């Protein structure tokens, strides 16, 4: 036993290291870790506390019932208002001061073309038009109502 004393010390060091590790760990593991899953439960509150950018369609409905009900009947019904109008929480908070932008008349073809311009990479079934040919020179909303295109 006397000749293995140095090994005993090694074992002591390893045990001390292990205890040290557990000690450090108890400080470094965040408070609410593991409560809900393999993450910090408080992160949920932290995320909730972040400033919001998108308000969501139910918020728009309260003041723009007409557009909402138009859209609900149309082929655009699955699209959120903010996918065309941009993030608008600020507008919801103060509708008078923050005015959302609408696509201008001369930008309309490019705007609708973002989704409807002909492209091989889109699913073939998705409604697409050749922007060069489909009623060239006219804004799309002269014939299609954006909230009720068809």
């Amino acid at each position, binding site marked *: 036993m006397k*000749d*293995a004393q*140095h090994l005993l*010390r090694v074992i002591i060091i390893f045990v001390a*290291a292990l205890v040290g590790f557990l000690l450090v760990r108890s400080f470094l593991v965040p408070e609410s*870790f593991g409560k809900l899953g*393999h993450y910090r439960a408080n992160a949920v509150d932290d995320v909730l506390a972040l400033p919001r950018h998108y308000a969501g369609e139910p918020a728009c409905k309260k003041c723009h019932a007409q557009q909402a009900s138009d859209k609900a009947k149309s082929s655009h019904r699955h699209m959120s208002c903010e996918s065309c109008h941009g993030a608008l929480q600020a507008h919801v908070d103060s509708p008078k001061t923050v005015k959302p932008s609408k696509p201008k008349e001369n930008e309309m073809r490019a705007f609708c073309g973002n989704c409807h311009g002909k492209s091989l990479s889109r699913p073939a079934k998705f409604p697409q038009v050749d922007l060069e040919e489909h009623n060239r020179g006219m804004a799309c909303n002269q014939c299609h109502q954006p909230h009720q295109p068809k």
Partner: protein
Amino acid sequence: MDMSLIESLRNALPLVSGFIYPNELELQWSILIVLYPYITGLVAGAFVLASLERVFNVKAIKPIYRLSLLVALAFLLVATLPLNLHLGHPERGISILMTPHTSSAMAMFGFVYLWYLMVVLLMEVWLDYRKQIVEWSRSETFWPKRIFYKVLTLGVDNISPRSLAIDEKLGKILTVVGLPSALLLHGYVGFIFGSLKANPWWSSPLMPIIFIFSAMASGIAAVMLIYMFLCWARDVVIDMPCLDTIGKFLLTAIIVAFSLEMLESLQTAYEAEEHFDIITLLVEGKLLVSMMLIQIMLGSLTPMFLLGLTQVVELPEKVRKVFYMLSGSLALIGIFAMRWNVVIGGQFFSKSLRGFTTYKMHLVGREGLFSAIIVELLPLVILAVLLYLLPPWEKESHSKSPTTAA
């Protein structure tokens, strides 16, 4: 969108070809992730070389036993650095050990790494040096060094034959345990890539095995070159039987690694699954230089030819030394190229299998070329310190002939 981002996209776009998904434009795993398997490979290879002496009783390589251990240790200490530097928040890297998830391959690597560092390598070095450490702690005149040795003795200066015999036995057990640990360590790196099923260039059960054998080749080559350099620097005669034996093992490792790689390529080519077209384009295009020329021609075939010559033809010592030096260096370059081709190559092509992105290495910055060079040189600095503190040649100096001081 942020203007500077648009600006950088504008530069990148002409270098992209075919159809890729938007999130594939920027290649995420940079040169640092190339270094990670490269450095761990050097560790595993050096350790395997050391264990040849201890476990398999290859007496000829005794002169480099301790050196190999120190090389393994020096590189191991740096092995996780490239991973940490790659993180946007390096200080959070520790979380992987604090709150590990069993489904995270990387988190488990942290424990494999710790096991190997603490239980295998440090213990083995310490047991092997313990006698000297005790002697040095008595005889060293430079006081900081003496205190360092004193600490390392752990306050026990018993070097009775019986205690040394215990050390010897334990050391042997540790090497036997260490060998699978070293293979596990590096096989694990291969496993991390091999288990990425989304990427046909990586996803292969052969990956860990290929990584292990190329690791052996790189580690053996590195120790060989370092040994030759140290002999030259210290003005000591190279132990030719030792060098010849290392050369033989290097040849074996390169042959096995290369054959496995070729077998895998053959299989990919013969199966010709839906990803085969893009891989052909990749190998014939973006990887032509780094794979065909550097990895295969220069890094594998040339050293195989040179080392093969030393086996079949009786060559004078001088020529053999030059051959060893050449093939060692080429093997190291070739294996670096192999890691590059795996890591960077695997990110070149799109998941659509219809297009390529590009990689533009930064010069400065956290993930730039300079940090890669520093990460690569750091182990050599650490090795120099280790050699100063724990000179591996003390033991053999009387038995061998360290002749001719210049």
